[in-house]
Structures are given as structure tokens and as C-alpha cells.
């Protein structure tokens, strides 16, 4: 009756339960798992396209490599593992249970005599007497002994360590259980629904309330893992599940409201704790409970666990002063904004969209400083003290980030600090700029005036850009530069002309324009000298410009001291940088009203307990398998002699030692 289907089924069974197949599965699973650790998982698809190019992007997408561990083929491997382990248990169960119970007392004499581990003694003792002593000995050693009378003596059949087999059942059943628990918490149900066209991933960027039912999951969904960001003072009744290149909306059975989000810091500035004070309401607005959620301290309500996962800005309101950097005036205009919102700015060069991206109340920076030479002292031999030296860490205050997008859609990103920073002994207000997110910020530094603000810088900048002030500035400069007897001469006119020219060139493109002009007009041999002269003219003229600007603003004239000298020089440097700053405006943060948002993760995972129970069994099983040694001893006693035989499924040195010990014991007993 060896029909084909039967034998096919049988060989499949053989294959599935074979050790080679199991080991292959373990290896394949291990190798497949590597892929997901090398390729970053669940990134936005656009990142993959940039990284891989359109062709490979498509290939990788088809293979499901952006979410390997939920890819069909990966689940197939897991399923094979479950099936194979189950079949293996199924196949071994009858044998193993029988073995656990059996003493194998029907073993034949011939087979005992063929054992590798056997030991024979001759004895004058009665068979029963020796059997009694040997039994006591074996029991003392932890064996269970069965005594079987034989026609010419006695057979003792003993076994120890049967739990080894139990361990096998526990551990392997645990593998099955853990995989099933994992599958319960996986997204198989959704995949099936998606396959049947009942659910669809939402890929549009639309308000949550407008997401259609086909992309929403009901509150009874047995298992999910989603996240939501709630600004302080707001609430949420949904969570978002990221799937492939889109998302799903999970409706929650309750409403989570965030009262406050707190970050505490260590004295070094590293974050110490993240906490959210939340309130839960039912759908009709009745308060259910109030709690504080922190990292490592989730809140569990109604089978849904709520975790502190992240934080962000929740729409901090910003009050700003805007400066038109290329306008020949010192005036500013007020701008109001909020993080995550956009405003339109109209300027002569066209419209800009101002997108407020983020706000940070603290910025801990390493202010460098000298690295001390470690002296030849013991502490340096030891690598120094384990107490870290945080002297160089400093909180440099709030900053905010925004993008300025021009009419063509090109954007640059800016990061402006609210408070000035001390660099090389002088104070500046910093504004960082970069073209793309993977670049580092380049900083524009604007010098502070005697009042500790940038108004002086802005005044001087305005005056230097104003062509109408140039004749006056040039005249003042020339008078200052020449002795009185040269006033009104041709020399003065030449000097005025030069100053006007230098100022105009500088206003056009900073030091770069001056440089280009010199390169064009001056023979190579004289360039260096000319550059020195021009710079000198520029600096002195700028000082005059500051006088004029102050007078116009109704302010007292600037002191002629070092501080003013530096202000002038720094202003010139900074203005020159404005031409590569990449934006026609600068935004200065005057005040803010911080609103934080807490990122919560919400999960329901019914498989968790199955997995935990499986883990417990696995641990027990592994210990039983590895630490309970299964051994059997037979002692066949006949008048005048006895034969000791011993076996174990696993031969180790311990087994050899134990056999020697039993053999010696028998020698002693038989005397």
C-alpha cells in the first residue's frame, strides 16, 4: 500500500521533522534577520529612493526589504519553523514519553553484554543481598530503581534525569508558543484585510478627521502599536500606525489629554527624565483617570498601554523682530509666528514663505576651551579621574529654527539663537544657515553694540548701504584723514572719490567685490598694498558712517575707543557674510511662549502574555535539557557475579567519571 501521496506526505513529514531541516531553518532565519539590521527599516520611501536610485528602490520594495520582519517571505520562514518544531514534537512525543516512564527492564542480557560501558565483578554474596545494597546505593545517587526478579538472580534497572526529556517538550513547545504569541501581535489581520480590499493605507497628508473609514481601525482592533503627538493643553482620540509609505488611523476607546510635559535635566544638561501628566476621558467626556507617564513607567488602561516615546515642540508662539538686510535703513518690523506654522513675507525680491520648524528652550554646547595637558601624575597614568569635567558645557539659551522658501520653492534652513554668545572675548548674536538637513550649520555672527543689542550693527549696516549718505561720509572721512592745510585741495577730492568708490563697492558685494575690483584694476605687484589702503579707507569711512547713523537716530556719537573699533570691524565682516547668508531678512527672537508636545505610543498586545509564558517554559526547558543529564544503569546479578552496564543519550566526561564511580562502588559492594 505504498501509494504516491502517502509516501509524499511521509517524506514531507520526515523532512519537516528532520534535524537538518531545523538547523537550516535556524540558519536561514538568522541570515534573513541580518538584512533588516543593515538596511534601515520603515524609513520614508523618499529616503530609500535617494539612497538606492529608482531601479533598486523598486526591486527592494518588491522584496519587502523596507519592512523585512513583516514581509511575506519572512513570515513563511517563521511559519516553517513553527510547523517544523511542532512536527518534531509530535514525532518525538510518543517515544520520549515512553522513555521517560520506562525503566527498560526488558533489556536482554546479550545487549547488556554489548554495552560500551560495562563492568563485571565476581561476588560471594547472595544475589538478593547485593541487589538490596546496590539499590540503596543507586537511590542514594539519585536514581529511580526497579528491581526485577529473574530466574537465576535479579536485574536492577535504574534511571535518572528523566526531566531532560521534559525539558525538550517545554523548550520546543515554548518556541511554538512564542512564535504564535508574536503572530497574534503582528499585523496579519490587517494584511488579510488589505489583501481583501477591506482596508487601505492612507498616503495623503490630510487632517486626521478627513481620513476615510477604509483607512481607519476600530477601537476593538485586538492588537495595534501606534503613536500620537499631543501638544500641551490638547487631546487626542486616535493613534497613527505607520505602514509602508503611509499610515492608518487607529480610533481609541478613550481620549487622552495632555496637561503638561516636563523635561528635567542633570546639572550637565543631559536630560534626566521625560514625563507627561495626562488625563483620560471616555468618549462622552467623563474623566476616567489621571496619571503621569514617564519613560519606563507606562500607563495601562483598558488593555492599552500608553508609553512616553518622544517629545517635540507643540507650537511655541514666537515674537520676532525682522530686519531687511539689504534695505538702507535701520528699521525693523515685527513678526509673530508659531512653530509648525507658516507665514508669507513680501519683499522686493519676491514672496517668501516662512516655515517655523522648531524651538529649543535649551542648547547645551561644548564651548571647547583649552584641553589641559595631563601632568605626569598618577591620575594621568590611570587615565584620569572618572569624575567628568563639565566645565566646557554651557547652556547657550533658546533657539528657533525656520525655513525660508522662495517663490521657486527653494528653501534654506536657519537656526537663530536668542541670546548672544561670547567668542574670542566679544559678544555676538548667531544665526546658522544651511542648504540641506545633512549639512552642518554655518554661522553668521552679528556684533553687539555698547547696549548689548544688534541695533548698532543694524544702524551701521543701513548707513553703509545707503548711497545717499555716501557723499557726506566720504567728506567726513577725508576731513578726518587730512591735515587742515590739505582741506579743499585736489587731494581731498581724490580721497573723497576713493572713499565713495570703496563704499559703493562694499555695499555691492562686501570684501569680495573690493577684491574683484582690485584684481581687475591694479597691477599684480601693487595689489597687496592697494588692498591694505582700501581696507584702511573702508574702516575709517565706516566709523564716520556710524557717526552719521547715530546722529540720524538721535543718539550720541560713538566713543572712539577699542569697543567701537571692534564693532566697526565686526560689522564689516558680518556685512560681507550677508552676501552669502542666503536670505534677505534676519529674524531676531524677542520673546516666546513655549508649548511642548508629548509623543505617546499606544499599544494593545494580546500575544504578550502568551510570549511571556512561552519564555518561562523556554527557560525551564533549556535548563532541564542542558543541566539534567539523562542516565540509565542496569545491574544484572547472578549467583557468583554481577554485570553493571550504563548508558546515556549524551556522553560527556561527567558520564565517564560517574561510570567509573559506579564501577568502583560495585567492586566495594561485591567484596
Amino acid at each position, binding site marked *: 500500500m505504498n501509494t504516491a501521496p502517502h509516501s509524499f506526505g511521509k517524506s514531507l513529514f520526515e523532512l519537516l521533522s528532520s*534535524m537538518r531541516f*531545523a*538547523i537550516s531553518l*535556524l*540558519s536561514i532565519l*538568522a541570515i534573513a*534577520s*541580518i538584512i*533588516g*539590521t*543593515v538596511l*534601515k527599516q520603515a524609513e520614508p520611501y523618499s529616503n530609500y529612493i535617494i539612497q538606492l536610485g529608482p531601479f533598486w528602490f523598486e526591486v527592494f520594495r518588491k522584496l519587502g526589504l523596507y519592512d*523585512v*520582519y513583516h514581509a511575506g517571505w519572512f513570515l513563511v520562514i517563521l511559519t516553517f519553523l513553527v510547523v517544523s518544531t511542532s512536527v518534531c514534537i509530535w514525532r518525538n512525543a510518543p517515544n520520549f514519553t515512553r522513555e521517560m516512564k520506562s525503566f527498560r527492564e526488558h533489556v536482554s542480557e546479550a545487549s547488556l553484554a554489548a554495552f560500551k560501558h560495562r563492568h563485571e565483578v565476581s561476588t560471594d554474596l547472595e544475589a538478593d543481598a547485593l541487589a538490596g*545494597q546496590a539499590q*540503596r*546505593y543507586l537511590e*542514594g*545517587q539519585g536514581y529511580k530503581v526497579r528491581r526485577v526478579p529473574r530466574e537465576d538472580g535479579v536485574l536492577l534497572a535504574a534511571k535518572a534525569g528523566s526531566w531532560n526529556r521534559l525539558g525538550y517538550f517545554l523548550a520546543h513547545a515554548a518556541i511554538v508558543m512564542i512564535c504564535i504569541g508574536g503572530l497574534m*501581535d503582528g499585523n496579519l489581520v490587517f494584511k488579510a484585510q488589505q489583501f481583501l480590499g477591506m482596508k487601505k493605507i492612507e498616503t495623503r497628508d490630510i487632517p486626521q478627521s478627513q481620513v476615510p473609514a477604509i483607512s481607519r481601525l476600530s477601537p476593538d482592533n485586538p492588537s495595534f*502599536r501606534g503613536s500620537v503627538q499631543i501638544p500641551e493643553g490638547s487631546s487626542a482620540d486616535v493613534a497613527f500606525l505607520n505602514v509602508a509609505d503611509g499610515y492608518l488611523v487607529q480610533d481609541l476607546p478613550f481620549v487622552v489629554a495632555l496637561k503638561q510635559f516636563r523635561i528635567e535635566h*542633570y546639572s*550637565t544638561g*543631559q*536630560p*534626566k527624565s521625560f514625563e507627561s501628566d495626562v488625563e483620560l476621558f471616555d468618549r462622552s467626556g467623563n474623566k476616567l483617570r489621571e496619571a503621569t507617564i*514617564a*519613560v*519606563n513607567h*507606562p500607563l495601562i488602561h483598558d488593555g492599552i*498601554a500608553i508609553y512616553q*516615546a518622544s517629545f517635540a515642540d507643540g507650537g511655541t508662539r514666537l515674537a520676532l523682530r525682522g530686519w531687511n538686510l539689504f534695505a538702507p535703513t535701520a528699521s525693523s518690523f515685527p513678526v509673530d509666528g508659531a512653530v509648525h506654522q507658516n507665514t508669507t513675507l513680501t519683499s522686493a525680491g519676491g514672496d517668501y514663505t516662512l516655515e517655523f520648524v522648531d524651538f529649543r528652550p535649551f542648547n547645551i554646547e561644548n564651548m571647547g576651551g583649552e584641553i589641559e595637558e595631563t601632568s605626569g601624575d*598618577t*591620575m594621568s*597614568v*590611570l*587615565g*584620569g*579621574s*572618572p*569624575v*567628568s569635567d563639565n566645565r566646557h558645557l554651557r547652556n547657550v539659551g533658546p533657539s528657533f529654527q525656520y525655513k525660508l522658501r522662495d517663490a521657486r520653492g527653494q528653501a534654506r534652513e536657519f537656526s537663530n539663537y536668542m541670546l548672544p554668545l561670547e567668542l574670542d572675548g566679544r559678544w555676538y548674536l548667531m544665526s546658522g544657515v544651511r542648504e540641506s538637513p545633512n549639512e552642518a550649520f554655518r554661522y553668521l555672527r552679528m556684533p553687539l553694540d555698547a547696549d548689548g543689542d544688534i541695533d548698532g550693527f543694524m544702524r551701521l549696516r543701513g548707513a553703509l548701504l545707503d548711497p545717499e549718505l555716501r557723499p557726506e561720509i566720504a567728506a567726513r572721512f577725508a576731513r578726518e584723514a587730512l591735515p587742515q592745510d590739505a582741506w579743499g585741495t585736489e587731494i581731498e577730492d581724490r580721497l573723497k572719490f576713493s572713499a565713495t568708490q570703496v563704499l559703493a563697492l562694499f555695499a555691492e558685494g562686501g570684501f569680495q567685490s573690493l577684491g574683484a575690483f582690485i584684481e581687475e584694476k591694479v597691477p599684480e605687484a601693487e595689489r597687496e598694498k592697494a588692498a591694505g589702503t582700501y581696507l584702511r579707507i573702508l574702516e575709517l569711512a565706516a566709523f564716520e558712517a556710524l557717526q552719521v547713523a547715530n546722529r540720524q537716530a538721535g543718539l550720541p556719537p560713538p566713543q572712539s575707543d577699542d569697543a567701537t573699533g571692534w564693532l566697526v570691524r565686526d560689522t564689516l565682516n558680518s556685512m560681507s557674510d550677508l552676501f552669502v547668508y542666503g536670505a534677505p531678512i534676519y529674524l531676531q527672537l524677542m520673546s516666546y511662549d513655549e508649548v511642548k508636545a508629548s509623543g505617546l*505610543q*499606544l*499599544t494593545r*498586545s494580546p500575544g*504578550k502574555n502568551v*510570549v511571556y509564558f512561552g519564555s518561562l517554559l*523556554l*527557560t525551564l526547558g*533549556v*535548563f532541564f535539557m*542542558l*543541566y539534567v543529564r539523562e542516565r540509565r544503569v542496569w545491574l544484572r546479578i547472578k549467583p557468583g557475579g554481577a554485570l553493571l552496564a550504563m548508558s546515556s543519550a*549524551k556522553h*560527556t*566526561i561527567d558520564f565517564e567519571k560517574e561510570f567509573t564511580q559506579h564501577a568502583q*562502588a560495585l567492586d*566495594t*559492594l561485591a567484596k
Partner: protein
Amino acid sequence: MELALNQPAPLLKRLTWFDWLFAAVVTVGGLAALSRFGDYMDIYEKGILLASIPALAVSGWFWKPFRPLFLAVGALSLFAISQYGGNLARMEEAFFLKYLISSQAAIMWMCALFGLATLAYWGGLLARSEFTMKTASTLTWAAVTLGWIGLMVRWYESYLIGADVGHIPVSNLYEVFVLFCLITAMMYLYYEARYQTRQMGAFVLLVISAAVGFILWYTFDRGAHEIQPLVPALKSWWMKLHVPANFVGYGAFSIAAMLGAAYLLAQRGILASRLPKLEVIDDVMYKAIAIGFAFFTIATILGAMWAAEAWGGYWSWDPKETWALIVWLNYAAWLHIRLVKGLRGAMLAWWAVVGLLITTFAFIGVNMFLSGLHSYGEL
């Protein structure tokens, strides 16, 4: 003949007065810690402290040399703490602290002693000198003692820096490397006594020396020995269980790999006459993988349970988790081949050696090359 031959007496009857004294000291110490610092612990941490009392006592009963080690480490650590008197600056003033048992001094002594022990084991192996081998064992014991003192004192120092900074020193790559050296050395010392052979030390100490090299580089080049406060994700009692369990696994797998190398050399006749018999090497290699696998299983499960509390899911396929699974699958396959197929010899030895590469990648490689939720100990 009434005598029940060699019958093992019940455990409690086999205990000597020293065993009881040891248990008493451990209990008093544990309870003193509880009454003194209980207010700073949550219920789980108290549970861990209480459970560690019997665990330590039984470890001492089961492995006798553990008792003097524990007592020496305890006494010297307490002495170091008394020298501090609550003032961190004493580190650079008090003689004993400065030169011997401040955490950093003790750990550097540990490094030096492990280095010397390695040389001594090799010297003893090549010269077939039992005396040199004995010296090597003693050096290893001394290194272990100082290493533990270093960790204990570091624990105390972290609280001196700030009550909110203090934490058990298993929180970053520097600290766990020290832990790795200590656990590996202790496991080796156990096998050394159990199998009455010191030759394997030459190989095991090599992997410890490599770790010591890493510690030194990490200290002098990166200043990694500085005590840093815990990031919020690590502030959990789970860390006290998960990390040490993992390092029993890593340590055991490293021992197995070094023995695998010894096996392969001996099989080709290199050092064969100086090393123990192949069966012995093979047996210790199996024992190491068995204990490593058991602890790694527990560590991974504990990690999953911690993840469920910290990240919102017991399994997130984060690179570190995934590599832990790969390591685990690897040794599961190893055990199957040996136990079920009954295979022995070169193939398994090679596999154990390759296993160390996989383990090392899971241990450090992931931190260096892959980013994920576990990004605490970046290089």
C-alpha cells in the same frame, strides 16, 4: 555492610562553619544595605537585593573560592568607601585611593594584572612550569578582586558625584567591558579548578587581554571612563538583571571560542603535548556554550520584558535585539548539532570560533555600525 557508598550527603549537612559564616555575612550585608538605602529603591530593586542574598550565599556554597573573593572585595570596598568619607576629592589625596582602590586605580590594576596573568599562563604553558601556572592563577584571582573593587567603588563614586547621577556601573560600554573581563575570568577559574588543569588559561586570558586592550584605548583615547548620568531609558531596575545576564552569555561564548581555537591547534599537533586532552577541551567548550546559551536565553527574555516597558513592545526588531536573536539561533544550532547529531571535533570548534565573531558583532559592532533604539554605548 551498612555504609551507603559515596552517597552525597544532603547539601545542608555538607556545609562547614565557614559556609555559614559566609552566608551570615552576606545576609547581614544585604539587610544593612536594605535598611540604609531602602528609601532610594523601588519595590523591584528591593526584591533584587533580597533575592541576591540567597543567590550569593548559594554561589559561595557551590563554588567555595567565591567566599574569600566576596569577603575580600566587600572588605576592601568598604575600606575604600570609608577613605572617601563622602568627599570625592579624597580620590587624589588619600594614599590608598590614589594608588590602589579608587575605582579607576583598581580597574587599571586589574588591567595590569590580567596582562601579567596572560604572560604567566603562556610562560607556564611553554616552559611546562607548574609553578608559573600557579602564579598565573593567583594573578588572575588578584585581577578579579581588584576589578570587582573597582566596580563597587565606582558605584559609590557615582553617588558622590550627585545623588541623581548615581547608578549601578553596568550602564555603558566601559563598565560592561570591565564586567566582561571579570565574569569571563571567574568562569574560567571555575573550570580551571573543576578540571584540574591550568593550560587552557593561556587561551582564555587572550580574549580577556583583548578586552583589557579595548578598555585602555577607550580610557586614554576617548575618556570613556568618566561616569555619566543615566539617560531616562536606562533608569530602570531591569538593567540590573538584563546586563549581567547578557555578560555571562558573552563571557561563556568567548571562553568557548578560545577553547575552540586551542582545540584546532592541538588537533594539528601545535602545543598538543602541552594542552589538555582533546576530549577535555571539547567538554569544557560544550559546558561553556551550554551555560552561555542558558544565560543568554534569560538575558534576551529579560531584555524583551524591559523593552515592553520602555519602548512599548517586547520585540521591535531593533538591530541590537535582532543580533541577539542571531547569536542565540547560532548557538541553538550549535547545540543541536552536537547533542542531537552527536557531532564532535573540528567542525564544532570552528563553529565556536566563528560564533565569537558573531557575538562580538552583536556586542560592539552593532553599536559602531548600526543605529537603533539601543544607541547608548556609541563609540
